[in-house]
């Protein structure tokens, strides 16, 4: 699919002060947006304006600042809800990051195991199965492992093909009548793969399992509509989508949030409290104990507005071009092996690779000396590394402000790497 209009990358870049940054005497080429994106002035200005003019704690008082702060916070919730096609803002829970969002779900299962009258969908017993994939970020693997350890359920997973795609050949075997929940990565952060969701979602539904997505790398980069995807829950994170750190999002069906026991408890999530006993507020409040990231929600709302103004179809089209360019240029470098899909179809502008005989740490270091920021390591996806027989990779990732020029700079810096380690 080709988008009608493209992004005006030059004018976008003007919104990001950090892109003027010099690394030594070189201008920064930031190719690490999959780790965290940069923030436009629109986001920092909105947060500053809020802090200097309306800052207050929310939902707790009747004064003007508290009312403005509450409006800003709830307005952010509504904006995020409409951005992902949620039917109600009440389906959006603010957390601190994707990782907390996923833990909120796994702890719903863990707490259901020790609570009277828990919804049976959340009660795991030995013999029950939980399904993830081999290409998960640790955030969508370790919490499920821990949950299985603590409940006696069995963790199963969908494998990866040599091309870096999900191996769905034995989907019907892996997702079966014993499966209670399937949680899988929407766009893989090491491989760059954009996973097709419909077949897995359909299979999960067919066996009566809950199904959710780790969309941390999806929501920032492609149009996402929860209704269309047909999933039960979805996690993503502010700092990867032009927003601030300190805020994450869990979307889940209202009916599911109602059925889930609370996770963090404390102020603002209660209905009434005595020394003996507490009853809880309705979702989303039920899952937002304590003072939430108010200024961060304001920043996130500004980020969503920024992305909406660009148009997510245009963002996708731009990144598809970047992905194609990156793959082509990298394939042409001597000694480079791409890990992940080698065609710009069903993949994002996040490309992991190996350079023969040079450890990624050294690749990253020398690229940095040229002003090129890439990420090196296991990218919190050790099982993927193991699958491809490496301990680490070098990963370049682009976003709305990324130019082909920056990719060229990375590619020539790889020559320098080869010289140093010749």
């Amino acid at each position, binding site marked *: 699919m080709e988008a009608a209009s493209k992004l005006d990358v030059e004018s976008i870049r003007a919104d990001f002060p950090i892109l003027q940054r010099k690394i030594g005497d070189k201008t920064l080429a930031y190719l690490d947006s999959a780790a965290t994106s940069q923030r436009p002035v629109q986001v920092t200005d909105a947060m500053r304006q809020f802090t200097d003019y309306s800052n207050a704690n929310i939902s707790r008082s009747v004064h003007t600042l508290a009312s403005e702060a509450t409006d800003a916070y709830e307005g952010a919730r509504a904006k995020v809800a409409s951005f992902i096609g949620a039917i109600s803002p009440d389906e959006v829970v603010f957390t601190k990051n994707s990782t907390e969002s996923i833990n909120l779900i796994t702890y719903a299962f863990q707490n259901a195991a020790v609570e009277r009258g828990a919804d049976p969908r959340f009660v795991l017993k030995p013999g029950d199965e939980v399904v993830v994939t081999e290409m998960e970020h640790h955030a969508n693997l370790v919490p499920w492992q821990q949950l299985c350890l603590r409940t006696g359920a069995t963790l199963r997973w969908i494998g990866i093909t040599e091309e870096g795609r999900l191996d769905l050949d034995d989907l019907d075997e892996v997702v079966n009548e014993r499966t209670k929940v399937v949680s899988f990565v929407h766009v893989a952060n090491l491989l760059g793969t954009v996973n097709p969701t419909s077949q897995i979602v359909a299979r999960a539904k067919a066996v009566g399992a809950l199904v959710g997505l780790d969309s941390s790398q999806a929501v920032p980069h492609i149009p996402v509509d929860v209704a269309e995807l047909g999933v039960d829950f979805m996690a993503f994170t502010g700092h990867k989508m032009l927003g601030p750190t300190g805020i994450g999002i869990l979307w889940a069906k209202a009916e599911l949030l109602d059925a889930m026991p609370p996770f963090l408890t404390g102020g603002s999530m209660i209905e*009434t409290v005595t020394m003996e006993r507490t009853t809880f507020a309705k979702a989303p409040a039920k899952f937002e104990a304590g003072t939430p990231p108010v200024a961060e929600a304001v920043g996130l709302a500004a980020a969503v507005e920024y992305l909406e103004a660009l148009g997510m179809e245009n963002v996708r089209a731009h990144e598809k071009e970047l992905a194609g360019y990156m793959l082509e240029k990298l394939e042409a470098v001597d000694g480079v092996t791409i890990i992940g899909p080698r065609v710009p179809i069903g993949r994002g502008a996040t490309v992991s690779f190996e350079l023969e005989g040079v450890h990624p740490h050294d690749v990253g270091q020398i690229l940095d000396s040229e002003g090129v920021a890439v990420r090196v390591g296991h990218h919190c996806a050790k099982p993927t590394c193991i699958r491809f027989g490496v301990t680490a990779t070098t990963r370049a990732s682009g976003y709305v402000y990324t130019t082909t020029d920056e990719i060229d700079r990375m590619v020539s810096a790889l020559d320098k790497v080869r010289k140093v380690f010749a």
Partner: protein
Amino acid sequence: MDLDELYQEVILDHYKRPRGVGLREPFEGESHQVNPTCGDEITLRVHVEGDTVADLSYENVGCSISKASASVLYELVNGANIDDALARLKEFTALMNSRGQGEADEETLEDAVAFTGVSKYPMRVKCALLGWMAFKDALVRAEAVPTPEGGAE
């Protein structure tokens, strides 16, 4: 801050001399509602005869807005036909959620028109709605209206 808009004479009057207060028998539905932010509470009962709200009785602790609102509710729905009462509930709820943009119909809402100003104060809207939510819930419990999807609010 135009305080007079919020604290209209009518509201202060209902607050100081609330109508219909007290819990009475008989009743078919009772609802207890709490405003989690401030701890305000109401217990409200409805006694239904045929399609009429034969009695609405309540006890509450709360601010002027929530108490006056319960008193106005009593005046508006006590003795009324259930359908009319529901129409007023709907109208009042819409007015409260209008953020100062709503036009109140004095014909149907009577004294409740005085709450138009409250809708400009988002932090007080919940106060004004507390009694009305209890009324809605009590009707459901009295099986005078069908259970809404997802349970009573």
